């Protein structure tokens, strides 16, 4: 037989019913990876894209040059934010299961990425998240009632009923609008950062995508523009191993790390233990300092695990082992920071349980308040005529006419009264 080409179809190490297997994951011991100067040339620090920056060791102590030396109070705030994010997610998932919101996406297992990064950045820095960084809102002090009202599409919905749940935005909090399309905001963040540099401001931008959507052309556009103009931006690639049902090999992760794409563009790539709060904080601080000193962009690959389903419409038991999350070698970001604080003598199981109770009660109170602004089944509702607003700044004649058409329909007795748009139930 003459030699023939053969198509390689990536396959994950384990499927349902099989033993979880993370032997493909290259993990550096905590404290071993060097911390270069923030203005080091990208080509001199390429090893950062292969190794894994880790600070928290097996004994829960912070070690090595990347230790950000945060005060215990700051660590406690980080723990609180992560815990609140998780409890909020858990509650919203339950609420979706009860049919009280149409859809939800949890960030369980990945809380350190949004929370540590949000804390390491400045309030004036502009954030372009994907749909799994709700922790950014928590860090910046967003009222959970606002997030819940968005998920409810009720009268207090910041999106006026125009977006599926979790597609938040917050102009004054400097968190950009999530579109729901994948990766589209990555190059927009670069444009935002270019504008900051053109205006001579010291604010930087940060954006987040998953490893799956790094296959989109937008990733390449973002990297190219960021490299060419040395834009002050942090480009975060959250490698949570799974893009719905396709494992990271389908995004190109089998041969090289995702962080290694950085050096290919002339951008430093840093691979970090995404479940190590201290390591995520430290690499973000490094990249932010670099960006503010005209050092340009950094690509950070956060190695983490999507512990929850992709969304409430997804059932991961159909494509991955049920116990995979338990076998994940980098553990749980909340558990690890908690153990670190306990090791420092700055935390205890009792305090943790008390905090959990307090935050649960807070989430409950927020939900009660959110429902007073309307639910899918009752209470105050948005006026459907508002759907014609904000298409353009001023309403053009065709929309004004259509609004009157809808008004007439609404006011015609033949049409049942009180009909409000309800979202399609997903999952």
């Amino acid at each position, binding site marked *: 037989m003459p030699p023939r080409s053969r198509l390689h179809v990536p396959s994950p190490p384990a499927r349902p019913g099989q033993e979880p297997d993370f032997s493909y994951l290259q993990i550096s011991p905590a404290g071993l990876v060097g911390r270069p100067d923030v203005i080091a040339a990208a080509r001199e620090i390429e090893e950062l894209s292969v190794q894994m920056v880790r600070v928290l060791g097996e004994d829960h102590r912070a070690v090595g040059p990347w230790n950000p030396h945060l005060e215990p109070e700051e660590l406690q705030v980080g723990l609180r934010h992560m815990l609140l994010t998780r409890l909020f997610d858990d509650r919203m998932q339950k609420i979706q299961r009860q049919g009280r919101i149409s859809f939800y996406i949890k960030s369980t297992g990945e809380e350190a990425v949004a929370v540590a990064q949000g804390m390491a950045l400045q309030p004036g820095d*502009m954030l372009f998240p994907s749909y799994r960084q709700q922790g950014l809102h928590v860090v910046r002090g967003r009222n959970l009632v606002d997030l819940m009202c968005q998920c409810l599409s009720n009268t207090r919905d*910041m*999106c*006026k009923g*125009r*977006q599926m749940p979790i*597609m938040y*935005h*917050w*102009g004054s909090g400097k968190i*950009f*609008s999530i*579109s729901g*399309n994948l990766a*589209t*905001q*990555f*190059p*927009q*963040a*670069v*444009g*935002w*950062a*270019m*504008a*900051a540099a*053109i*205006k001579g401001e010291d604010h930087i*931008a940060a954006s987040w995508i998953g490893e799956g959507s790094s296959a989109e*052309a*937008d990733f*390449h*556009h*973002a990297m*190219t*523009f960021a490299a*060419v*103009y040395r834009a002050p931006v942090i480009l975060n690639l959250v490698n949570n191993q799974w893009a719905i049902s396709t494992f990271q090999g389908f995004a190109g992760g089998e041969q090289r790390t995702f962080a290694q794409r950085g050096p290919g563009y002339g951008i430093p790539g840093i691979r970090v233990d995404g479940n190590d709060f201290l390591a995520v904080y430290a690499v973000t601080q490094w990249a932010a300092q670099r960006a503010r000193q005209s050092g340009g962009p950094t690509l950070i690959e956060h190695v983490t695990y999507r512990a929850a389903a992709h969304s409430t419409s997804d059932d991961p038991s159909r494509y991955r082992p049920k116990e995979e999350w338990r076998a994940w070698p980098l553990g749980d970001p909340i558990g690890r920071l908690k153990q670190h604080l306990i090791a420092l003598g700055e935390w205890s199981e009792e305090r943790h349980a008390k905090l959990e109770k307090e935050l649960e009660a807070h989430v409950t109170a927020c939900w009660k308040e959110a429902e007073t602004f309307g639910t899918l089944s009752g209470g105050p509702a948005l006026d459907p005529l508002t759907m014609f*607003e*904000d*298409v*353009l*700044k001023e309403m*053009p*004649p*065709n929309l004004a006419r259509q609004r009157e058409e809808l008004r007439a329909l609404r006011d015609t007795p033949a049409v049942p009264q009180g009909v409000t748009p309800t979202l399609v139930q997903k999952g």
Partner: protein
Amino acid sequence: MARMNMVQALNSAMDVMLARDPRVVILGEDVGYFGGVFRATEGLQRKHGEHRVLDTPIAEGGIIAAAIGMGANGLKPVAEIQFADYIYPGFDQVVSELARLRYRSAGDFSAPVTIRTPCGGGIRGGQTHSQSPEALFAHVCGIKVVMPSNPYDAKGLLISSIEGDDPVVFFEPKRIYNGPFDGEPHKPASPWSTHPRGEVPEGHFTVPIGRAEIVREGSEATILAYGTMVHVAEAAVKMARVDAEIIDVRTMAPLDVDTLCTSVCKTGRCVVVHEATRFGGYGAELVATVQEQCFWNLEAPIQRVAGWDTPYPHAFEWEYFPGPGRIAAALKLVTEAR
């Protein structure tokens, strides 16, 4: 007043806006040092600096995305896509992002981006340098779509686009960059210097978006056209010896329904003309709007004259182009119908 061709008028519009408003930035392939492949940005980088007039990588999706980010950060970006035929890699950024940002964030975010792009055929550009994709963009809610037919409008409309708070896709019919074109390729080209709309104020002025213009008054029929086809329609009127009213639509979205329909209700006959392919083209929207508003005044079926439903062929450009002969035939058809 100065004599300008369309490229000079566009250049002047950007020059005026760069000088007036520090938020204005120009970006695109070859627009900086070189001044653009059609010279529309010639001299602007030298005059206003390399932070205001940026050469970019060859990535239309990246150009539009970066412009959106810049717009969200308080700048007024004017992005050039070198040919409308190359805009498709950026289509998602226009449709899903630029056009929706204000709506999906309930007005909290917006990006006032103007996208300039040369369109249309008649320059031996074959199927990748001749397309007129205005219908694809007019179909997208949340953006304005503009196509001028002369230097005066080009400058005034471009300044309106840049000054406005909404995103605009600004199509420039490249066949008429240097002079009005009546659809007869074998005649010597006439320059803008002999055309009344080649006279353009040197400073700041605007032409409002969303207003059509009656370029020739007439009583026997109405021709709805835009871009290059306005001039071809004028030639067709002479050829057919029909006293037709010619309306330059100028803005595809939002559409000036009143000007169009007032004319058709007056004449009772209508021919819709565009260079883009016919099926599902922008002309279909015009025909539908006119029949809704003018049905009881119509004396004949509305006719469409458009590019054939094929890609733009390199060797058969003039057989493809909807020239004055085809428009004249349509005029005869609508005026002779009883």
